Each structure stands twice: as structure tokens, then as C-alpha cells.
């Protein structure tokens, strides 16, 4: 007899928990279908994220096309070394995230834990460096608002316009950092589930989806770093 989805459904009813993978939700026919659905759903969510950051990038493009020189001058106030360091840290965390998923694919439960911990540590390092950068901006009076007072004479002359750059800098990197914090929270939760041995080569959808999110946040930074930190590098 051909095994149709309906047949398998009836078998499932006959034996509610026997013969079924514990992580297979009842609305799916198979683990493959379940994984395909969760991956597709995650990408749908990432489209909304692309559009969310896209609006900010569009604002950046419009203001920069109008205030080209001011943006280059203001960008020079950012610390390229710390920005490049953070880029490397984030790319490294993407590698460890990908390796955590690979560890699940090859049934190495302890390696999943190791790579998740490394990813969380690298993500935390990124936020730590970001904190140092934000602190410096406060010290140098580069935060937009009533206390905005850059030391650089070239910036003082165009202070109003320079504030637009720093507004975009704080909003874009701030929302990016918020995504990192949420990502670390998700990874901590997955660390607990991994500790309980919930993931193996047959089921690791939550790791895969968290990975997609983590890599997306990495991609946002891949664009933020040159657009914010490097546009003034050749003018000095």
C-alpha cells in the first residue's frame, strides 16, 4: 500500500507518540518538511528585517548624497581600528555559529556547546568594544543634542549637519547592537536546549534559524562598517 500523508496521519493517531520523532510537530508530514518550513519562515522574517534596516540605509544614502563632505569629515571621528576589530570579531562569531550547526549535523553534541559558547563570547566582545566606542563619543561631545560640541574646527563650522551623521551613526549601530543583544539571548536559550541534548543530525531547526538571524546581523555590520567608519579615511 502506498504510504500517503493521510496514511501516515492515521498511523500517528493509532500510536500518538510511538514511531514519531519527538521533535516532529503534528502539523508536518516529515522532518524534512518541518525544516523546510522553518527555514522559509525565517527567511520571510529576515525580509522584514532587510526592509527595516533598508529604511535606515536609504536615509543614510539620501543625507550622504546631500552632505557628502560633512559626512566624510564626521566619519573621521570614528575609530577605524576598533571598527575593523569588531568586524573581525563578528565574522569570527559567524564562523563559530556555522560550525555549531555543523556540529549538530554530525552529531557532536559537545562541539555544539563549545561553538555556541564561543559565538556568545565573540558577540559579547563586539558589544564590549561598541560600549568603549560609545563612551568615547560621549567624552568627545559627539552625541547629537544640546551638548554636541566637536573639538575639530572643520566640524564646528558645520555642527548642525554633522549631527545628522552622528544621529544616523547612533541609530544604525544602536539598533544593530540591540539585534546582537537579542541574538545573544536566543543563543543562551539554545545553549540550554543543547545542554539537554535536544539537537542532533535529525533535528536542529532552532540552531539553523538562530544561525540565519546571526548571519543576517553580521551582514548588516558588513555594510555599516565601511559606510560609517571608512568614508572619510582618504581625505586625511
Amino acid at each position, binding site marked *: 500500500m502506498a504510504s500517503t500523508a493521510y496514511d501516515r496521519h492515521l498511523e500517528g493517531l493509532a500510536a500518538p507518540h510511538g514511531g514519531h520523532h519527538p521533535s516532529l510537530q503534528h502539523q508536518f508530514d516529515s*522532518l*524534512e518538511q518541518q*525544516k*523546510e518550513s522553518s*527555514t*522559509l519562515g525565517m*527567511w*520571510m522574517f*529576515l*525580509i522584514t528585517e*532587510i*526592509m527595516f534596516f*533598508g*529604511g535606515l*540605509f*536609504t536615509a543614510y*544614502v*539620501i*543625507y550622504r*548624497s*546631500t*552632505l557628502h563632505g560633512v559626512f566624510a569629515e564626521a566619519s573621521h571621528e570614528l575609530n*577605524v581600528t576598533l571598527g*575593523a576589530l569588531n*568586524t*573581525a570579531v563578528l*565574522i*569570527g562569531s*559567524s*564562523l563559530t*555559529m*556555522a*560550525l555549531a550547526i*555543523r556540529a549538530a*549535523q*554530525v552529531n557532536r553534541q559537545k562541539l555544539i556547546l563549545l561553538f555556541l559558547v564561543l559565538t556568545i563570547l565573540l558577540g559579547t566582545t563586539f558589544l564590549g568594544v561598541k560600549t568603549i566606542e560609545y563612551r568615547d563619543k560621549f567624552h568627545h561631545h559627539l552625541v547629537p543634542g544640546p551638548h554636541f560640541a566637536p573639538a575639530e574646527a572643520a566640524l564646528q563650522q558645520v555642527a*548642525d*549637519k554633522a549631527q*545628522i551623521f552622528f544621529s544616523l551613526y547612533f541609530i544604525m549601530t544602536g539598533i544593530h547592537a540591540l539585534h546582537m543583544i537579542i541574538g545573544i539571548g536566543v543563543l543562551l536559550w539554545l545553549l540550554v536546549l543543547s545542554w539537554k541534548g535536544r539537537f542532533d*543530525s*535529525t533535528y536542529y531547526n532552532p540552531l*539553523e534559524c538562530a*544561525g*540565519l538571524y546571526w*548571519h*543576517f546581523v*553580521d*551582514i548588516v555590520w*558588513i*555594510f555599516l*562598517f*565601511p*559606510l560609517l567608519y*571608512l*568614508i572619510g*579615511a*582618504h*581625505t586625511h
Partner: protein
Amino acid sequence: MPEHVASIKMYVGVFLALMVGTALTVFAAKVDLGAWNDIVMLTIAVTKAVLVILFFMHVKYSTRLTALTAVGGFFFLAILICLTLNDYLSRFELLGPLVPGK
């Protein structure tokens, strides 16, 4: 489960390519190339993003539906940026500069 398991060598290779791209973009930014600075910078960034999407995000090994969804996201982004710029770069010229006293 017939799942594609990529080799560690591949993941490390992509990681190294991304690191080289980062070093390259920092180096290129310090050289005055005029308008080409932005083009070089964005070309490197897009290349890095494509590497992450294809290999780290497994789009290379996923179904066509997932790949199409991923491409669709960036297609919408292109519409957002292009149409908004159409408006700002054409219409607002007639009304004067975007920021008064430029």
C-alpha cells in the same frame, strides 16, 4: 535526513575570504580614488554579504524556494532605495537643497 554537510575547510575558507575582504576595504579606503572609493567599498561589501548568504546561511544548499525568497528580500530593498532616490534626486532639486543653507 539527506542534509548537505559542508566541510570545515569550506567554512574556514569563507571566514578567511571575509577577513581578507575586511583588510582590503580598510586599505582601499585610505587611498584616494575619487568617486571610485565608494564603488570599491560597496563591491567588497556586497561580495562579503554574498559569501555569507551562500555558504554560512546555506542558501547554496537550500531549496529553490528558499533561495528565491532570499533574492526577493534584496529585490524589495533595491525597489525601496531606487524609487526613494528617484524622488529625492529629481523632485527635491526643484524645491531647493534638502538641508537649508547648504
